[in-house]
């Protein structure tokens, strides 16, 4: 169902987006501030139901690419994602009728909202990751045959570039990454232009409104003194994501990080309260795999999230620190992200993990037996 997004929705949306960021995606707080300013100046944003799109629609997703730790210093000028969108429109010779997130987790849930508010166009309630992933080819759009390029990238000076790599979405990612570093570590992009039926065929629907619902669920659970994890599990049951469960509760005892190949790779070790049990979570920007006492419990692309023990607020991998008390909460991904072709693009093997993907709800059943 289409709806209008107002400034009162932002806190919940950003909290839910941080959850779907599955440890990465960048802190959406700056995105929240940007959208809040745009909403004050331009009024509410129309959020479209993807089923309402037609073949006359041209949807151009917009996003930010780069290092979240650079973004917190080098704030945008405000024109960048709009310049990227305009540049791609010019290249295609057509105007966008709507924008859309490529990634519903982290700050990239908010960039299209900012573009939509500024330009007075609607944003589609869907995305191509259903969570956050570190690379631009890791999209259901790509999995189901949509080329990411031509991609337009812009900086704060109004400089733009078009990256055209044909059907090779991985090459598009590496070229865009190189330009981003020269731009100062953060760039703004428009890519994966598509018509309405293609959105309906390849996108994960209703993920913006899902972020909003999940953020609201955490907030209201807290004010009703209800366990946020229980409330999240109940809320997820009625969605494409279906399953959510706490797989571990404990304290962060070690965080190891290293920069390899342009990513943050590492692991966090958690110790249970009052038992010898430990949980190890490995990450590449986002959480990839969680193991409890050596037994695999959640594998990418299923979502691993870390929640502040008392408040249920999502904590990103970048802000995990020694001594924090957290719960590890797993969420199953929609079926469209668990097909063989989807797993080839963003399953365990795409991250160099040897294990075959097994849905976390099945692993949970094994662990319980």
């Amino acid at each position: 169902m289409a709806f209008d997004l107002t400034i009162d929705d932002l806190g919940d949306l950003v909290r839910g987006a941080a959850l779907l960021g599955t440890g990465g995606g960048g802190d959406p707080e700056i995105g929240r501030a940007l959208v809040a300013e745009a909403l004050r100046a331009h009024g509410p944003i129309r959020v479209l139901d993807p089923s309402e799109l037609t073949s006359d629609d041209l949807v151009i997703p917009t996003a930010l690419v780069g290092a979240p730790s650079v973004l917190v210093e080098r704030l945008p000028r405000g024109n960048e994602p709009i310049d990227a969108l305009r540049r791609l429109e010019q290249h295609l010779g057509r105007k966008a009728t709507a924008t859309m997130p490529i990634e519903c987790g982290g700050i990239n849930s908010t960039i299209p909202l900012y573009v939509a508010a500024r330009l007075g166009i609607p944003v589609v309630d869907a995305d191509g990751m259903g969570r956050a992933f570190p690379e631009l080819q890791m999209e259901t759009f790509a999995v189901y045959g949509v080329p990411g390029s031509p991609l337009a990238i812009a900086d704060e000076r109004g400089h733009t570039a078009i990256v055209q790599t044909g059907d090779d979405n991985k090459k598009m990612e590496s070229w865009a990454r190189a330009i981003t570093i020269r731009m100062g570590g953060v760039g703004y992009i428009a890519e994966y232009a598509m018509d309405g039926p293609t959105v309906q065929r390849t996108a994960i629907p209703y993920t913006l409104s899902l972020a909003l619902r999940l953020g609201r669920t955490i907030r209201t659970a807290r004010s009703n003194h209800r366990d946020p994890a229980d409330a999240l599990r109940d809320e997820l049951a009625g969605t494409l994501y279906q399953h959510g469960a706490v797989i571990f509760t404990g304290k962060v005892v070690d965080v190891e990080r290293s920069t390899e190949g342009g990513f943050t790779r590492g692991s966090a070790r958690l110790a249970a309260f009052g038992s010898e049990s430990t949980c190890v979570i490995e990450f590449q920007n986002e959480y990839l795999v969680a193991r409890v006492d050596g037994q695999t419990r959640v594998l990418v692309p299923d979502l691993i999230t870390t929640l502040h023990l008392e408040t249920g607020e999502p904590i990103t991998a970048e802000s995990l620190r020694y001594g924090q008390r957290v719960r590890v909460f797993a969420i199953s991904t929609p079926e469209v992200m668990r097909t063989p072709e989807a797993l080839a693009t963003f399953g365990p093997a795409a991250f160099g993990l040897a294990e075959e993907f097994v849905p976390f709800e099945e692993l949970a059943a094994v662990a319980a037996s």
Partner: protein
Amino acid sequence: MRIGIDVGGTNTDAVLLDGTSVLAETKMATSNDVTSGIINALDELHRVRPFPTESVQAVMIGTTHFINAIVEADRLSPTAAIRLGLPATAALPPLVGWPDRLVTAIRGRGYLCHGGHEFDGRLISPINRAELLRVAEELSSLGIRSIAISSVFSPVNAEMEQEAASLLLEQLPGLHVSMSHEIGRMGLLERENATIINASLRELAENVCTGLAQALSTAGFSAALYLSQNDGTLMDVDYARDYPVATFASGPTNSMRGAAFLSGLETCAVVDVGGTTSDVGILQGGFPREATAEASVGGVRTNFRMPDVLSVGIGGGSRVRSTDGQVTVGPDSVGYRLHEQAMVFGGTTLTATDVAVAAGRADVGDASLVRDLDPALVRACLDVIAGDVSSVVDRMRTSPAPLPVALVGGGSILLPDELDGAAKVFRPDHFAVANAIGAAIAQVGGEVDRIFAVPPGQRDDVLDTAKQEAVDRAVAAGAEATSVEIVDVDEVPIAYLPGNATRIRVRAVGDLTLRTS
């Protein structure tokens, strides 16, 4: 010997310490001008336990005066924020997201100028001299006397902020300049916010610090004067003049550190019961547990280190009501009017203190005035107090194992010797002045928070460099070199960037070197 003073909203507490023994303690009413209350407290300390003033080597003061000025949006100077970063950053200008009330109180004004660095040291833009000269003219015509300067990536490269500061000072001698690289860590908006808050307090800080120094010398002290900071460490009074924002969370920090010192507990919950609220914090290894969320002060996001404190509206002055057999305590309080309005002092308002006296837990005022209180009401009221406070302790507790609980503050007489979920309840000696003791035993710290290039195989060397820098900073701040310890190391590699760029944050803390006079 050293003297610790805590200037609270209601009381000014003072203690005299010789090494680790408490020689004397006093509790006096806080004065409007802060300093005469301190003089009264020092006189009283001297009366209780005469001592030669020259034997006092250091006076440590904890005060909530500056944070209260922000919370109340009062006593603040007209302030401008100048940010160097164009053409980047314009989407979120200075003061974005600030409450209108506070912007009005500081007559806040933001200027976006060219400048700033990239993460790797490249320039975003050079400084534009003409642009800054126009800003100087406008500041002058508006009568703005204090400014905050921020620049993109200034924690990595501070040159731009320094260059802009000296250019503006040439035009406007006497201007108070606060630079963001000296105030906060990475995160432009939060760092800039803290810098603007600091700038708005500079004139007040001048007055208060000058007053404090004069008060001490008038009282015949030649001791060094320190103020306590958010993390329980100290800064000298001249530093406080320039960085008043660093005192913000010192109140709860001091009471927790004081509780740790008095009880000998390293890991425990601390309940500080004052006149209006009970504040609960957690000590881990002798230091307050820090809040995980970004700290918000007066509605403004900052990135200070703040202790994680949860408060409940129960204190010695809390009003007690009974309707249809349902007893409520607080959250409203008679506050500093306790000595006029509470029943044990001849007043007509039933307060938590009256109930504690009726129950025989406390001996203040005239117990005969509460002799006729219904014992059932007294019991119900004390149950409510104990229940509410232990539920806050329970919320702060993060492991199923019960924690020891240390009770401090004048109002802790309201609480029983056993609490649900507490392993054991400690009520240390001198509990009523724990925060003044926390001020007296404070340490000094040094911190490094920067992006380092970490060449392959040289991580340990880079970490050692960072640690040494933090130790040097602690020693420069007055720590005794042999006592300095590294208490926190945090590394965050910056994703997607070449050269293994890593943000390294190190904190070192040590005992204060006492000068012998």
